[in-house]
């Protein structure tokens, strides 16, 4: 438990740092976003309205500390104000749907690549010197050298454009409306195949190679020799004795790379015009829509930290040695 709590403390600290960063950065720029908004709306506000807007966005003339505390208070309550680029849509409305799509894509890619990579890694390590062992690691090494989004572009080009097998953008067909119908779900799945597929293809290699090397290290341990001397069947030695130990370092590695993969998902979302948090973040940044930007950045960070927390809790269940520390 202390293990999880320690990590939780770190995550809360990280969230606070992101919040503060997002507060400080816009205020280092000349001008303020409210003026930008007024500019866009061609000055159709009365002074009273402008004052109200300024208050709403937190760009009052109050001392910085007061603004900061107000900002924190709003953030904790999930009130991020109104979007500037999509005025007057509420920021929270935009990010809630985006969050859903990002989490869907992210969870599927993370889980599938980790599970596939781990299983392949176990098989490859067990049959060392076999055909799979000489081919797969190098092959996946090469594939893994490609930037995610490049492979995404390539896949989009080959399978979307040239062969027309898969849709080229969005999370579901534009002709459908969201709802719990098979048609909708089917469309969602089909639209997931390429974005998820490209990320999985590139990430699997990492897990395979990592699992293979931890398996090789574990297979040299004495308790494996003992398990074999006990006359246990191969599959039992492989799973109960080897894999259960070899997966631990990979699991922590998995936790550490969640941030990298979910953060990097931005690029995939751009290539496929997939309406997730990353997609909107890039648009918000280009439009200098600070309220939306702040919220999106925070959401991405929170999603990553939540995933990390889940992984931490799972790890405690897998490794009895951390339970006593």
């Amino acid at each position, binding site marked *: 438990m202390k293990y999880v709590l320690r990590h939780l403390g770190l995550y809360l600290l990280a969230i606070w740092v992101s919040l503060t960063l*997002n507060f400080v950065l816009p205020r280092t720029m000349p001008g303020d976003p409210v003026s930008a908004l007024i500019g866009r709306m061609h000055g159709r506000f009365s002074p009273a309205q402008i004052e109200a807007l300024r208050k709403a966005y937190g760009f009052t003339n109050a001392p910085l500390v007061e603004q900061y505390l107000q900002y924190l208070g709003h953030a904790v309550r999930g009130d991020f104000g109104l979007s500037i680029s999509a005025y007057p849509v509420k920021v929270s409305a935009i990010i809630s749907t985006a969050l859903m799509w990002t989490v869907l894509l992210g969870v599927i890619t993370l889980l599938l690549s980790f599970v596939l990579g781990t299983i392949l890694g176990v098989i490859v390590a067990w049959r060392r010197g076999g055909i799979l062992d000489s081919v797969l690691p190098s092959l996946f090494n090469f594939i893994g*050298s490609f930037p995610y*989004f*490049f492979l995404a572009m390539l896949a*989009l080009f080959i399978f979307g454009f040239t062969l027309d097998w898969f849709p080229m953008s969005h999370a579901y067909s534009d002709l459908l409306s969201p709802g719990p119908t098979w048609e909708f779900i089917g469309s969602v799945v089909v639209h997931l195949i390429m974005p998820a597929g490209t990320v999985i293809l590139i990430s699997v290699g990492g897990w395979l190679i990592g699992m293979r090397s931890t398996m090789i290290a574990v297979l040299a341990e004495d308790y494996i020799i003992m398990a074999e001397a006990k006359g246990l069947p191969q599959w039992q030695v492989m799973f109960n004795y080897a894999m259960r130990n070899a997966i631990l370092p990979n699991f922590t590695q998995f936790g550490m790379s969640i941030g990298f993969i979910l953060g990097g998902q931005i690029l995939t979302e751009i290539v496929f015009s997939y309406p997730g948090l990353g997609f909107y*973040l890039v648009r918000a940044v280009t439009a200098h829509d600070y309220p939306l930007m702040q919220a999106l950045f925070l959401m991405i960070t929170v999603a990553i930290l939540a995933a990390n927390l889940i992984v931490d809790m799972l790890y405690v269940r897998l490794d009895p040695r951390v339970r006593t520390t």
Partner: protein
Amino acid sequence: MEFLRSLLLQRKAVFGAILLAGFVLMALFAPQIAPGDPTRFVGRQNQPPSAEHWFGTTGQGQDVFAQLVRGSRISLMIGFTVGFLITLLGLAIGMTAGFLGGIADGLLNVLTNVFLIIPALPLLITLASFLPPGITTVTFVLTITSWAWPARVFRSQTLSLREKDFVAASAISGESTFRIIFSEILPNMMSLVVSSFFGNVIYAIAADVGLAFLGFENVTTVSWGTMLYWAQNNSALLQGAWWTFVPPGLCVALVAFATTMLIYAVDEVTNPRLKTEKEISVAMKKFRIPARRATPVIRELAE
């Protein structure tokens, strides 16, 4: 020297080094290989590869080959510079934390962990959007968002080396902290530093390309990343103009792959367990020993 020699004996190292050297040479001699301004208009837009334009033309009628060759300079330069800076910063912070211990270590460790946890790309984008686009901006934001991972690695290595007897011996014999760090601890970390440096170079090149692709760099300069940005913006995919984005992407992948091979070779030479593993599998192949679970009985081996 011994290290270099055994390194060169590895096929992986030779392959990786040659490939990487090829790209570096291309970057160094870029103006000779593809003379003229790479952004100038040379022909019709989106022309497929031909004898005149080896990799075809872009959506704005520029020569892809020229852009590829000239762009390699910026991409590789940023990659190596940022890779070097990340390694340096990570080394400074990680070794200080690991060696000093106590409160300094605690604080630096928390700092490192926070930077590790906060997602890099979103932070990169946010920072880059507030600063004027350009090489200095890219170098700066990439460095301050990516030093945490090597810092963590170097810290744990410093921690374990600090406990070793030869360090205690130097401390007792009165060596100054400075000397201990530089002549005792650092040399024993060199292989780690080298592989970390190469890893950081790969990361830097990829991150730079990613940033450029999203449009957060100076899109008027020519680099592999901006080539990809323009390909995306000019809807290369919808036009079927694969030659505008495949070459730069492929180059990034090849540089990354070559560097990875080098890292593996360094690992194999320096990691004692990997070395014995390799020696065992070489020996087993030589005598054609089947890799079964039970010890094999081969009576023919006894003369």
